Structure formats: C-alpha cells, structure tokens
C-alpha cells in the first residue's frame, strides 16, 4: 500500500508539483473558508464595542475599552478560523506521514541554501503567522539548522502584513497589475529569505551539516482524536495570546496616540464643531482635531525622535511611527496610518479615502521603500518573544533585530534610490 502511494507522491517528476498543488489548496481553503466566520466575528466585536460605549460612555474609559482593547483583540481573534484551518491541514499532512515525503523531496533544493529538508514546514507556516512557525521549527534537531530557519521565518510575509501590501499596491500600481505585484512581494520575500539562509550558513552558523537520515513512516489514516486534540490546543493558545499580549499592546498604542491631553485645544474644537453648519463640516473638523492632537501625542514624539534614521530611505515621521507601532503587531501599521492621515481610526485596507490620501501625500519612491521595509523588518512583539524562547536566548533576539533591520534598511535604501529614477 505504502509502496503504491509513494510511487505517485514521491515521483521524480510529479512529486513536487503535487506538493505545490496541495499547499496551494490548503492556502485557498485557509483564506476562502476562513473568511466566512471572520465576518461574523468582526460584526460581533463591532457590536460589542458599540454596546460597551453605551455602558461606559464616550469618555476615556469607554474609548480605552472599545477603541483600544476591543478593536485590537477583535482584529486578532478574527483570524482564529484561518489559524484553525491551517493547523488542521498541517496536522493532517503530518499524521498521515506525508510531511516526511515532502522533506525527502525538498531536501536537495533546501540543502543548497544551507537549510534542512525539514525547514520547509516552519517556513510554509510562516506565511500564515510567525508564532506557530517558530514553534514548529522544533522538529529540527540540529541547533544550527534550527537557528538559521528561525532567523529567516520572518521573511515569509505573514497574514498580518497583507493589509499593508493591499493598501500600498492599490494606491500606487494600476489595478490590472496589482495582483502580480502582490505575488512578486511574497516571492521576493521568500527568495531573500533563502539567500539570507545561505549567508548565515556560510558566515555565522558554520559547521558540519546535520546528516539527513530519516525514517519514512508508513502511510496511515489519521486519528481523529489526535487531530482534534492538536487543533484545540492550538486554538486555545492563540486565544490566550489575544487575551493577554494583544490586549496589553492595544491599550498601550491607544494610550500613546491619545495622550498627553490638551484640554485647551479640545475645548476650542468643541466650540467650532458646535457651530458647524453641515455634518460634513463637523466630520472634517473632527478629523482635523484628531490630527492636531495626534501631532502632539506620545506616538508623534516617538516618531519624530527617530525620523532622522529613516530620512535616507525616504520615510517621514508618520511612516516611521507606523512602522514602529507595527512592532507591536503588523495589523497596527494600517490603522496607525489611518489615524495619522486624519481619517479616524476606523480605516481598513479597503477604504477608498485612505488610499487616495496616501496616493496624494506619499511619493511613489517612499511607498516602495515602505513596502520593502515592512517585508523584512522585525516580526511583531508576540512573535519576537516566541523567537527568543525557541532560539533559547534573548541574545539571539538582539541579533535578529540587527539582522532584519540591516536587511530591511539596506534593501529599502536600494529600492528607494531606484524608484527615484523611475
């Protein structure tokens, strides 16, 4: 039986295409099927936010809970269906014995870049989210192979970076090319990741290769109980992260963008809004007020203090602070940009307004530089903490920070200069 299946699945010619199609289907399923309950969860959190504001009022407490805590946690819980489907698929592939075959098929290719055949599982998972990707790198027994894999997982663009790409590609490229550019971004990230692995293998984590001797398990039907157990544990861990870390980070960002308070400015605007003739004028005044207050918030202070470092790659303080808030979670990049360009916090990648403002206010070359920086810089805080745990030392997190920042800055610089001449 195993022999017959192997004749197809590890076929010299068809083996890799079959694997590519299987993975493609898994991703299609993850995003297509996952988007259905996603809308319900989104609606639930929006409704809950409205309800909370009716209880706690529009003041600081209501805003902290609804705009800070709830919108932050909601944005993460929303991805639970995708995560569950992805892990279900990976658990299925693992328990049937197919993963060992893929490691067999890909080892030759990966070996050339200093990676191990088994590295592919964490790398593929990295396109979903870096946190489970770092954890799944445990399957690599050799410490150096595992470290190289851990260092490049961040270059596989995770799901949370997608809104940033969709926003910028939509704003700066013609519609018929947008899909191709998006595809190019993902491929380029993976390619740079492979080259970075080669570099690390040659200069940093030198040493003898781990021999690739692996038992190929017989194919077997997956145990439902085992798969159920794996998926449930993954789901609980994910929700735990949302309820603890994301909760704290969202409230922090909310605080930094809302404080310190300037009662005089607020009073002045309250008067103007009171006197405004049309609803339109009211909204534009409210937006203007948010903008003025934001220019004086802690977040702006942080952004302006580091502006100089990003000037050579064409980024102003607003883009700088968006990148910095993205260190907490990549989802925050787009919502920060929305706030900063004075359109209120309820902006997602599909809102026409933000797209147009960005088109007008950000030069093309700076946009290119921004996209490249997002592709390669440090993963979010949750992922970074998991990285430190999995690599075994916070020392490696410092290395990761230096490594990713240098690559991101360097490539952004090149991209920016080239785009300037285009």
């Amino acid at each position, binding site marked *: 039986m*195993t*022999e017959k299946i*192997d*004749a197809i699945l*590890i076929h*010299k010619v068809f*083996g*890799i295409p079959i694997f590519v199609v299987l993975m493609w289907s898994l991703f299609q399923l993850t995003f297509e099927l996952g988007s259905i309950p996603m809308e319900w969860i989104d609606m639930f959190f929006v409704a809950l936010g409205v309800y909370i504001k009716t209880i706690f009022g529009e003041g600081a407490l209501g805003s902290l809970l609804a705009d800070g805590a709830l919108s932050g946690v909601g944005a993460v819980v929303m991805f639970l269906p995708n995560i569950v489907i992805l892990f279900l698929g990976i658990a299925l592939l693992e328990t049937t014995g197919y993963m*060992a075959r893929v*490691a*067999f*098929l890909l*080892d*030759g*290719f990966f*070996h050339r870049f200093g990676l191990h*055949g088994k590295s592919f599982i964490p790398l593929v998972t990295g396109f979903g989210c870096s946190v489970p990707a770092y954890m799944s790198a445990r399957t690599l027994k050799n410490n150096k192979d595992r470290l190289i894999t851990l260092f490049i997982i961040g270059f596989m663009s995770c799901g949370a970076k997608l809104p940033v790409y969709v926003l910028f590609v939509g704003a700066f490229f013609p519609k018929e090319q947008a899909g191709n550019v998006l595809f190019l971004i993902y491929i380029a990230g993976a390619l740079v990741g492979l080259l970075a692995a080669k570099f690390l293998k040659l200069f940093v984590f030198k040493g003898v290769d781990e*021999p*690739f*001797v*692996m*038992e*190929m*398990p*017989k194919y077997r039907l997956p145990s439902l109980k085992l798969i159920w157990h794996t998926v449930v544990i993954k789901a609980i861990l994910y929700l735990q992260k949302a309820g603890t870390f994301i909760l704290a980070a969202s409230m922090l960002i909310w605080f930094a963008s809302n404080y310190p308070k300037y009662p005089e400015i607020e009073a002045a605007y309250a008067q103007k809004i009171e006197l405004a003739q049309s609803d339109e004028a009211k909204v534009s005044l409210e937006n203007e007020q948010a903008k003025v207050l934001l220019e004086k918030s802690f977040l702006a202070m942080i952004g302006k203090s580091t502006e100089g470092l990003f000037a050579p790659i064409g980024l102003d303080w607003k883009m700088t602070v968006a990148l910095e808030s993205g260190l907490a979670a990549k989802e925050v990049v787009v919502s920060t940009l929305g706030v900063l360009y004075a359109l209120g916090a309820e902006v997602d990648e599909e809102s026409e307004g933000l797209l147009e403002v960005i088109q007008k206010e950000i030069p093309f070359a700076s946009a290119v530089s921004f996209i490249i920086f997002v592709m390669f810089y440090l993963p979010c805080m949750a992922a970074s903490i998991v990285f430190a745990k999995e690599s075994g030392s916070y020392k490696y997190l410092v290395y990761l920070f230096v490594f990713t920042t240098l690559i991101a800055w360097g490539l952004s610089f090149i991209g920016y200069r080239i785009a300037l001449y285009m």
Partner: protein
Amino acid sequence: MIMLSEMNPGEQGIVSKIDAQGELKQRLFSLGLRKGSQIKMKASSIAKSTLEVEVGSTLLALRYEEAKMIQVKRV
C-alpha cells in the same frame, strides 16, 4: 562492491562496510542499517540528491553524501 549511492531503483544488496563515524554511525545503526543488513533501493529525488531505501521492513531516506559512505555487495 559498489556504493549505495551508485545503486539504481529496484536493485538489492547486502551492506558490507559503513564508513561513517560517531553520531551518524549510531543513527544508521539504530535504524537497522549495519554490516550484513539486506538493503533495497526504492526511489530517488531529482538529481539523486536524496534516496529512499528499504532496510528490513523499514523505509529510510538519506542524502547522496551519506549513501556514499555505505558499501554494498549486489545480490
């Protein structure tokens, strides 16, 4: 006498010598690959970079480089 790496899919043999040291030798031994074991080449990936062999009733995957260390007597 040939090296395991030179065998073609379908061919069988008996291991006559293993040139590996330390950990790798241990690993091969624990998977049943030792002097005197029956071995059968099953398949190889593109450019022969990885090979699948059958030892006893277990299936093993190894790289070309490791297969070069294993001497086999064709049967």
